[in-house]
């Protein structure tokens, strides 16, 4: 292990480390802690200039109710779920198929195809913006949840295919070979042999794509105009313009918008990190 475990060091080193750890964390998360505290601060505190002191009271319930009551944030959150969940299902589903094809079969152009999926991941969104917006308009899907979902599914399929293909490559190929010898059809091999083994990959990708799509802001501004299909990221930013200087509301709104991916991360941490660090350890 590197660096040397603190337990093996002098007792004072170990103690110092344990003291520094929480201090470092607090400094690191200071902006976030500030927002969390502000979100429960009574509005009177802000008027009185008490931005950083101990809140004069707990107004959490009040502020959060106000956010939901006086703004369409509940509606935005619902939109975000309507966009995110079908995208996760679509992108993960399509990429299971693509990843299987690219990992299991040897055919001309398979590597080139794989590389196109990989490269597609890294291109700037702006090169897609004008045509995708135009196409969405022509299909009558501008300003709809469906329009956003279709784009997100297509785009995320690139990253997911990269992930799935590498994952399936790591599975024991002998399993597939022996099924073929017994005359099992290719489709049944996929459904009954490979798919069950892909569970960890599916879990990892699902949490990751959920977070990516939930946090998307660019496409929400390009493909959506009004409130009807607007997700919470874009909604929050437009509310920020209305809540001038009402930082307790902006803070509460921010916390609300950040909550779903944060909870997702906490409950599925292992999978999330496995998805993110793919390729960081080998090669």
């Amino acid at each position, binding site marked *: 292990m590197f660096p040397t475990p603190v337990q093996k060091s002098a007792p004072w080193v170990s103690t110092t480390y344990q003291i520094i750890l929480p201090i470092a964390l607090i400094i690191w998360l200071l902006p976030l802690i500030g927002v969390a505290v502000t979100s429960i601060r009574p509005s009177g505190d802000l008027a009185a200039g008490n931005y950083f002191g101990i809140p004069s009271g707990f107004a959490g319930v009040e502020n959060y109710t106000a956010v939901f009551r006086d703004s369409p944030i509940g509606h935005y959150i619902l939109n975000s779920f309507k966009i995110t969940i079908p995208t996760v299902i679509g992108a993960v589903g399509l990429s299971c198929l693509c990843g299987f094809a690219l990992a299991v079969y040897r055919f001309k152009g398979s590597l080139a195809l794989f590389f196109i999926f990989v490269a597609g991941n890294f291109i*700037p969104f702006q090169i897609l913006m004008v045509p995708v917006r135009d196409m969405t308009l022509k299909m009558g899907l501008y300003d709809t949840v469906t329009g956003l979902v279709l784009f997100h599914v297509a785009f995320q399929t690139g990253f997911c295919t990269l992930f799935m293909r590498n994952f399936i490559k790591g599975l024991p190929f002998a399993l597939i070979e022996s099924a073929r010898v017994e005359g099992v059809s290719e489709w049944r091999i996929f459904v009954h042999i490979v798919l069950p083994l892909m569970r960890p990959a599916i879990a990892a990708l699902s949490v990751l794509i959920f977070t990516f799509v939930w946090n998307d802001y660019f496409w929400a501004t390009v493909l959506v105009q009004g409130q009807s299909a607007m997700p919470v990221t874009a909604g929050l*930013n437009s509310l920020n313009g209305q809540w001038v200087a009402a930082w307790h509301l902006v803070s509460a709104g921010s916390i609300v918008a950040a909550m779903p991916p944060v909870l997702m991360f906490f409950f599925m941490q292992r999978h999330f990190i496995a998805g993110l660090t793919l390729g960081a350890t080998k090669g």
Partner: protein
Amino acid sequence: MGTSSTALPGFWKRNQRTFAPWLFLAPGALMFLIYVILPVFQSVWISFHDWDGLGPKTWIGIGNYVELFSDDAFYTSLENNIIWLVLYLLAVPAGLAAALFLNQTVAGIRIYKSLFFFPFVISQVVVGLIFTWFYAPNFGLFSVLTEALTGTQIAVLADERLVTYGIIAAGLWPQIAYCMILYLTGLNNINSEQIEAGRMDGAKGWHLFWNIVLPQLRPATFIAVVVTVIGALRSFDLVSVMTAGGPYGSSRVLSYYMYEEALSEYGFRMGYGAAIAVVLFLIMMIFITFFLIRMLRQERNS
């Protein structure tokens, strides 16, 4: 696929393995083609036109590009993109430092690791709002601190010279967290025998780190550099949320300038926007190519 086997059982059975990959690929590849691959070419095509997004397109050849190269706003954006690129890369060593700091096994360390990772999970819109508040004149923590230290307040986001650095600092926060996670995983997988052998030979501290640990972290470093470079060039959300390119366009980056030209109240100059996007795309292609070449080498080795 099961249904077609009744019609032509013999043919399907014999050729199943030739067609199967294409059938598996079809839905995903088609979506990807329509929404990702074709638009790249369409954008290049549009960049040679004058187009408001609704009416007919007028072919103007390289007109947009000619205009671009005498456009001050374009150079400001390009310069800011370079500043982003250089400073954003600080996330890599900073993430490594954070990972080394947290790579211990004391009580509760797992919770510490996940809390340190927190900024990455949050939307950039929220990060942008948090930092706007942090920098806010008169009451933002940063303003209060600078006033206490220097006697004068610094309104970062209103200062043409400082605004880009202020936004980059906000971007570094989640990016360092990301690099940290990559390095923590890398540290988890390093060969402990080599470390022990190094220690036996008397290698310590910096020497051990530089010669034995860092080479083993190369895959993590590579991924961290790639995602950071791409992240820097893609930066849009923070600029849009924190300053909308201001003051006076001084915090614009190419991705934001493109959006502004193509989709803002100043007019729908789709062709000009597409030309900016093409330039950004070409810059990005340099890095994507490096990444693909390395991946190709890996594929050949395995």
